[in-house]
């Protein structure tokens, strides 16, 4: 608000009051001297009021200039009799700009992606083509809210997964009919948090368990097409037993798992602050499950390194069949583009007759900069899994993957081939071959 604007106000007010005073004087029949005295007193009163208001405005300007928030209600002067409308409107307009009281920085953002692919799969007897949603990084939409109140950060995240023909679920049954995963919406995150520098972060609601993601550390740039969660590509497919010419009821996803902590759960989670690249997490989860994890990421010269280790007590999760689960992963990326990734895990079975399931995974990759569009990422990986579905099961899988990043478009296009092999006592399953091509588009 500008003080200079009170000049015209003062003049206008004076003229208006003079006219009003003269009219009033004429009507009452008062003498000229009495009218003049009355006008003088009124002008003096108005001047005193304006001086007082001017002082208040000066004070407010000084406080605003010092960055102080103004919580008082906006100044709004009642229009005087005879005061012209434009002057009144000007005062009101400027008064509205003084409404500045705020307690927090607040950001509310909408985000999401679609990730669709064409998947061809052959179980040794027959092959099918499916149009799928990529289970490695499903199509989703979410709202992220963050705010700062004093020294605290608070926020919430709501994220929904839009299930439509998930790649890890689709298969063809013994009648040759495609079985889809159906449509539906799954809740990924309904999660709130508060955090403070030096104190850490507390999260509550449905979201990542403390150990989630600890088997998925990967710097290759080909994760969306091929990563340690090998069952995400064609996990719904059934193995075919060639000697008996029968389609089994064993899905690929039953025989391969990357034991990625406790996934997403309804939980309470705490993360320590990061110090020298190290962060620890602990969580209490649904199903009487608890988990602990450590994460580390650092750059050493021309190398980027990231790794994680986790220990979970699954409780009633995973069918309640395991006492403990240990898993971890690490990845190294050199500035040349070459990268190496490894992961491993084991579950401690409660049943003494049950062998402990274990897996290990390795990946070699190369990130090339062929075009300005974005990096061109290549990788080859291998995984071995033992005893996951039954004792003496040995699962092996390998994949070749290519992902072209189209950075400006927020898009990745990918192509990958994967071979699944399961050795099981008394049966001779054919290998399952799968090929997919798709795109992940972040909107």
């Amino acid at each position, binding site marked *: 608000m500008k003080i200079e604007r009170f000049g015209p106000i003062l003049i206008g007010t004076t003229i208006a009051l003079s006219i009003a005073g003269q009219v009033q004087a004429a009507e009452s029949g008062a003498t000229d001297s009495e009218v003049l005295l009355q006008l003088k007193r009124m002008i003096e009163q108005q001047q005193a009021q304006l001086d007082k208001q001017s002082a208040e405005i000066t004070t407010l300007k000084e406080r605003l200039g010092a960055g102080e928030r103004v919580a008082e209600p906006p100044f709004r002067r009642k229009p005087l009799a005879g005061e012209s409308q434009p002057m009144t409107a000007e005062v009101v307009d400027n008064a509205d700009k003084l*409404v500045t009281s705020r*307690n927090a920085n607040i950001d509310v*953002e909408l*985000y999401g992606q679609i990730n669709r692919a064409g998947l061809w799969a052959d179980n040794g007897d027959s092959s099918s083509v499916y149009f799928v949603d990529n289970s490695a990084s499903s199509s*989703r939409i979410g709202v992220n809210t963050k705010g700062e109140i004093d020294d605290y950060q608070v926020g919430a995240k709501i994220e929904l997964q839009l299930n439509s023909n998930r790649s890890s679920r689709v298969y063809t049954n013994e009648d040759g009919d495609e079985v889809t995963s159906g449509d539906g919406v799954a809740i990924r995150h309904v999660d709130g948090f508060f955090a403070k520098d030096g104190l850490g972060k507390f999260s509550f609601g449905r979201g990542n368990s403390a150990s989630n993601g600890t088997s998925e550390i990967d710097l290759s740039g080909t994760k969306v097409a091929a990563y340690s969660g090998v069952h995400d590509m064609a996990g719904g497919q059934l193995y075919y037993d060639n000697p008996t010419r029968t389609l089994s009821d064993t899905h690929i996803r039953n025989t391969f798992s990357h034991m990625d902590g406790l996934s997403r759960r309804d939980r309470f989670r705490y993360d320590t602050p990061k110090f020298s690249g190290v962060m620890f997490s602990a969580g209490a989860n649904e199903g009487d499950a608890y988990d602990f994890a450590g994460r580390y990421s650092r750059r050493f010269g021309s190398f980027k390194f990231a790794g994680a*280790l986790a220990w979970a007590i699954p409780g009633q999760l995973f069918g309640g069949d395991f006492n403990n689960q240990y898993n971890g992963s690490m990845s190294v990326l050199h500035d040349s583009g070459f990268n190496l990734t490894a992961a491993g895990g084991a579950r401690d079975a409660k049943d003494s007759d049950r062998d402990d399931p274990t897996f290990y995974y390795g990946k070699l990759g190369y990130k090339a900069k062929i075009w300005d569009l974005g990096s061109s990422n290549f990788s080859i990986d291998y995984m071995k899994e033992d005893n996951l579905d039954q004792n003496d099961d040995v699962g092996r899988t390998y994949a070749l993957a290519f992902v072209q990043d189209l950075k*400006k478009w927020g898009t990745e296009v990918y192509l990958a081939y994967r071979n699944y092999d399961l050795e099981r006592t008394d049966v001779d399953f054919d290998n399952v071959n799968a090929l997919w091509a798709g795109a992940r*588009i972040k909107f």
Partner: protein
Amino acid sequence: MRIVLDPIRAGVLFTCLVLPGCGGEAYLYTNDLDIKPGPGLLSGEKGAFTLIKIRSQERANISAQPGPAGTGPETR
């Protein structure tokens, strides 16, 4: 109490103890299977649509009348 460590656990423990002391520079790893960092096709550089953005430092004009650029809440 006797503590026995097999080679793998000893290696993991050694790595955990030694790596933080190795120096290096800060590097933040993000799991891009969640949402890939970076721009979006429609949302542009930020990669997300800003629904509400309020800064306490600003002289925010929350009245219906728009104020000068940069003084009001940003809503897209």
